[in-house]
């Protein structure tokens, strides 16, 4: 909100200049974002928190400053001289919805001459961001700025039956508001109506029909209270937020309506209008001002600094609370009506802290009375994966949790109120990673290896943690003087995942070809945990994408590292080469050999895989290097030969062994 320094200075008789005043406001919780010079004045742009609608006004802020500097708030004259007819003879006000309009004050002004505002008024409303319209509208805006209470002026002679009825809209009713928009109203919207139709959206905006115009001579002035929640809902539903609705939806001083009306009348009277006798004040029972008991010990306990009862009382008194001290232990404070935000002891403690000064509260560390817990296992797993992958040369990306869906968004959860083409929650990390890849490729960078750790939201399932890997570059980042850059390769991605799974101690890891594709399904402990897929980015760039469901993986990892004694006996190696059908998978070869070799077969390493013209059609050649070792003794050459013969025999059942 914008507010003029000179205005505040006049109202609060400020002893300080604009910059110091801005600092004081900031220190009290009314953050001044900018101070800009305007002629001889300075305009503060403030961030008023939503709990302090009373400070959306010059008097509200002046009241805070007067309390801060210990000065007296200058009161503005609001005592119009009434003359002529009584208001009851000129208009009537009926409130059909007292729950949504607890108070409605009306004044009538006659002999109105619509014209330009005096210079002081024009410049004041102008400095606060309002366009000067005419004397009547400017005065209502000025009083809203001054007192924080929105006031609306109707052309009395354009109100059907010269009357006001506050009611809910009827289905199908329409109203053309002052912003020249024809609005269809629903029955939840509270309206100000005349005898037959709505003339204003209560607390939000007036209608064109009853607008003050050049020919207006008699005015009905509305100064009312509206239910904050209803104003808020209506304004949201209608998509119409105004200075008035911004104040009503946060709550207004229940005592303000007659005062604001009088202030407007006073000012318009100075401009030649006649104020009719009396005013209408339709109100339902309002709550009496809150009275709060506060224990001084609670102030100390919550703030960690001792502030005596008298000091507390002094702060509250400065802020307009009516305080009664009960010895040194407690006090009772009656809340001023403009402080709609204060209703409990902790609210009072905040006021005391604010005035004591947050920066005067000492710093201390809390006692360590709670036992720290270890990092939860799933978070430890993520950290471990992150460290491993970064060490393995992959770079972490973070992509949006909502994505542009594919043509068929089956399995994805749509957002109800998306703000861009990213309309669905991601069900996989793939889309975001592709997007990151595409961005880099479009910017001339094709060589990258990315990963992301984040949540995915598959439809009908629980949100879960996932790891995505996208590999576009080869093993080295760039071509070197020793070797050209290589292409991404399925087996490198698989190698990264194998190494990672070994590091986190995943159980029973297996890769299975997805039928008819070059993709692999990954399982651990017998359950599906992820996949690897080849893909082409932008139709040209080969890459591999993998995704691991971390929640599923976390259930299938071993925690403890169990020490195994280092084998001290020597190992022997033997190689075996053989031809097998192309359809024979390496895994089946390994299984056959492992079964045959038993405990003394220490490891199986594939050291050559050959396909080519020299081989019979449909065959491939493999060479395994087998390591034989016993944990309990040195194997003799004859024993190794016998073990190896068994392994070779096992291989022979799958293909033809080459000598």
């Amino acid at each position, binding site marked *: 909100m914008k507010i003029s320094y000179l205005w505040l200075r006049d109202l609060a008789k400020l002893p300080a200049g604009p910059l110091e005043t801005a600092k004081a406001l900031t*220190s*009290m*919780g009314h*953050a001044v974002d900018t101070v800009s010079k305007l002629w001889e004045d300075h305009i503060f742009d403030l961030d008023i*928190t*939503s*709990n302090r609608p009373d400070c959306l006004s010059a008097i509200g802020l002046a009241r805070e400053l007067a309390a801060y500097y210990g000065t007296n708030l200058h009161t503005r004259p609001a005592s119009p001289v009434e003359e002529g007819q009584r208001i009851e003879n000129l208009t009537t006000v009926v409130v059909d919805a007292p729950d949504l309009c607890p108070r409605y004050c009306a004044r009538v002004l006659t002999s109105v001459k619509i014209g330009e505002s005096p210079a002081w008024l024009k410049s004041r409303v102008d400095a606060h961001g309002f366009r000067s319209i005419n004397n009547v509208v400017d005065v209502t805006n000025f009083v809203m700025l001054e007192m924080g209470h929105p006031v609306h002026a109707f052309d009395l002679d354009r109100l059907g039956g010269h009357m006001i009825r506050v009611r809910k809209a009827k289905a199908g009713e329409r109203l053309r508001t002052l912003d020249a928009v024809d609005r269809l109203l629903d029955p939840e919207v509270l309206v100000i109506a005349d005898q037959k139709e709505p003339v204003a959206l209560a607390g939000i905006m007036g209608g064109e029909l009853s607008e003050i115009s050049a020919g207006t001579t008699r005015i009905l002035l509305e100064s009312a209270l509206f239910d*904050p929640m209803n104003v*808020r809902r209506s304004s949201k539903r209608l998509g119409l937020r105004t200075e008035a609705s911004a104040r009503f939806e946060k709550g207004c001083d229940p005592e303000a309506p007659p005062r604001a009306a009088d202030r407007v009348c006073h000012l318009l009277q100075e401009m030649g209008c006649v104020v009719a006798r009396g005013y209408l004040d339709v109100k339902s029972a309002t709550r009496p001002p809150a009275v709060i008991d506060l224990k001084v010990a609670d102030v100390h*306990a*919550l*703030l*960690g600094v001792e502030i005596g009862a008298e000091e507390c009382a002094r702060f509250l008194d400065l802020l307009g609370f009516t305080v009664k001290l009960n010895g040194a232990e407690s006090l009772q404070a009656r809340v001023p009506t403009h402080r709609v935000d204060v209703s409990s002891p902790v*609210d009072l*403690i*905040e006021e005391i*802290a*604010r005035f004591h000064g947050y920066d005067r*509260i*000492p*710093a*201390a*560390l*809390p*006692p360590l*009375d709670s036992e*720290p817990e270890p*990092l*939860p296992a799933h*978070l430890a797993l993520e950290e471990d994966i*992150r460290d491993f992958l*970064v*060490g*393995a*040369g*992959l*770079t*972490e*990306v*973070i*992509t949006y*949790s*909502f994505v542009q869906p594919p043509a068929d968004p089956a399995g994805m959860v749509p*957002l*109800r*109120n*998306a*703000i861009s083409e990213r309309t669905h929650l991601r069900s996989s990390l793939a889309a975001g990673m592709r997007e990151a890849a595409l*961005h880099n490729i479009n910017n001339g*960078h094709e060589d*990258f*290896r*990315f990963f992301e750790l984040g*949540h995915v*939201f598959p439809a009908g399932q629980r*949100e879960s943690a996932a790891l995505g890997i996208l590999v576009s570059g080869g093993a*080295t*980042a760039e071509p*070197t*003087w020793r070797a050209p850059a290589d292409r991404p390769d399925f087996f490198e991605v698989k190698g990264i995942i194998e190494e990672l799974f070994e590091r986190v101690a995943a159980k029973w890891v297996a890769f299975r070809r997805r039928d008819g594709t070059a993709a692999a399904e990954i399982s651990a402990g017998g359950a599906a945990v992820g996949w690897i897929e080849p893909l082409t980015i932008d139709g040209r760039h080969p890459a591999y994408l993998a995704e691991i469901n971390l929640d599923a993986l976390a259930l299938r990892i071993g925690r403890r590292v169990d020490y195994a004694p280092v084998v001290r006996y020597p190992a022997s190696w033997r190689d075996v080469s053989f031809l097998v059908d192309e359809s024979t998978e390496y895994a089946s070869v390994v299984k056959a050999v492992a079964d045959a070799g038993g405990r003394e077969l220490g490891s199986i390493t594939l050291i050559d895989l050959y396909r080519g013209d020299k081989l019979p059609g449909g065959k491939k050649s493999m060479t395994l290097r087998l390591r034989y070792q016993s944990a309990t003794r040195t194997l003799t050459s004859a024993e190794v030969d016998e073990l190896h013969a068994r392994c070779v025999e096992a291989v022979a059942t799958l293909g033809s062994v080459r000598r």
Partner: protein
Amino acid sequence: MDLTDIEALEARFNGELQACADDRALTALHDAYLSRKRGHIGEIMRQLPQVDPSVRGAVGQRANALKRRVEEAIEKRRAELAEAAQQAIVDLVDVTLPGIRPRRGFIHPISQTRREICRIFMQMGYSIEDGPELDTEYYNFEAANIPRDHPARDAQDSFYVTDDLLLRTHTTPVQIHAMERRKPPLRIIAPGRVFRRDATDATHTPMFFQVEGLVVGKGISFAHLRGTLQTFAHMMFGPDVKLRLRPSYFPFVEPGAEVDISCFLCKGNGCRVCKDSGWIEILGAGMVHPALFDRVGYDRKEVTGFAFGMGIDRITLLKHGIEDTRLFFENDYRFLSQFRS
């Protein structure tokens, strides 16, 4: 044949030895002198019976000595040449050629900051909590003392999936879950992704990261909040950084505060980052509102607590002088690879 012939042969050998530049020449030289059949020394040995008997013994001795010397000299020369050849290879090494580097990976700058913040609080005895990103209206708003139609919801316009489910707008729901699950005293931080329906610009993205902290126990006070944040600021931004707390409003805390640190870039002299104010806003904080304790079944007469929250993205921007928060989610390698970890 006499001694002078042997001396002449030795002189000739010495000359030829010097001329040998490689292993092959040395082998040829070796054959020329030492070959049993065709070698010069062998020739002398064969002619020995015809030598005058008075000098035959001396000539034989000299010839044998020469044979030894030739053998040694050739071996020595061979070693010299081998060393020279080795040296020649070593001399080819250009240590200024680029090394063959392993591929490097980088931790996302937001993750780096998150880790740094978490590490500091873990040192102070905090436990880390997390929770779902898709949570209910109750945990995100109601339990955080932000009822429906509360003006504070304006600042947290949210993405809904159903009437009741939304992407969390802060990590406060994690705190609520933690309080429901655990008894006081507790001391936790909750880092994570949060979502707000903000238009995207240089300082706003509809997704960003927060860390919130919560301490609840007997006698926890605003002074403890202050001390904790001061310790954090010193560890995170340096021991000279000063803290400023201003009253502010968040429905889930009271008293509430906005917390600034003195600008660590300009030391308070004024710069672009602190908009010449000397202060940078880094977090919101306050004493836990008693209404939250009522919700989770803590006794508001028994315990008090403080809570704080900060934007990880914002701190990362400040730390590295990044001007546009959208860069975090663009994932340009040229950006990501600047943040060495």
